[in-house]
């Protein structure tokens, strides 16, 4: 069964450094999402992406964040200058288009630790 994959599984970085989190959505899916989960808290929406542009973003997704689909398979989340409070598990998700295809499928996550 096709799965969303994410790399790396863990990333440790120093405050102020840039990080790029990578995702490979399920092929033929056209909606892509990033969510995050701070330890012990609920899953929060960051951004959605469709047709090579951001569809919607939350207040968390400020100017330090950006997303890109650099080729036909990858979907990346970049944090330009990491802060301590960016430490979280970051999940990528994808969804197919069409009626009856509302389910978002999540990857295993990247655990980001900012020191």
């Amino acid at each position, binding site marked *: 069964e096709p799965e969303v994959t994410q790399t790396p599984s863990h990333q440790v970085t120093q405050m102020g450094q840039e990080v790029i989190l990578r995702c490979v959505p399920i092929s033929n899916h056209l909606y892509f999402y990033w969510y995050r989960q701070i330890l012990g808290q609920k*899953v929060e*929406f960051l951004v959605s992406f469709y047709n090579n542009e951001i569809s919607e973003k*939350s207040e968390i997704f400020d100017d330090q964040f950006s997303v890109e689909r650099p080729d036909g398979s990858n979907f990346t989340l970049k944090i330009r200058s990491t802060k301590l409070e960016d430490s979280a598990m970051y*999940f990528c998700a994808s969804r197919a288009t069409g009626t009856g295809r509302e*389910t978002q499928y999540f990857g295993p996550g990247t655990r980001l630790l900012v020191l």
Partner: protein
Amino acid sequence: AQSVAQPEDQVNVAEGNPLTVKCTYSVSGNPYLFWYVQYPNRGLQFLLKYITGDNLVKGSYGFEAEFNKSQTSFHLKKPSALVSDSALYFCAVRASLSGNTPLVFGKGTRLSVIA
């Protein structure tokens, strides 16, 4: 604004007994409702969804959920719990109004099934 409430942080049940994990929601318009499960150090795994039709929906691993519009609830149930069902369960909602509305998650309920 959309919201999801999972009133119980923890649910304990003996193996073989029925289990219920509660979820109530608030959304403008018709809801799309989802349950996801998260095992330790893993991503979010889709269990089941309600989009339209029968109020009782069946999903993976013997789980089911009942949509109750008047009570705005979508409780997750299983007739006979297994120890392997022990995990963190998230209820999520999105409005059906537009194609790329993100999911809003509850804070999660930790289910512990005791042998």
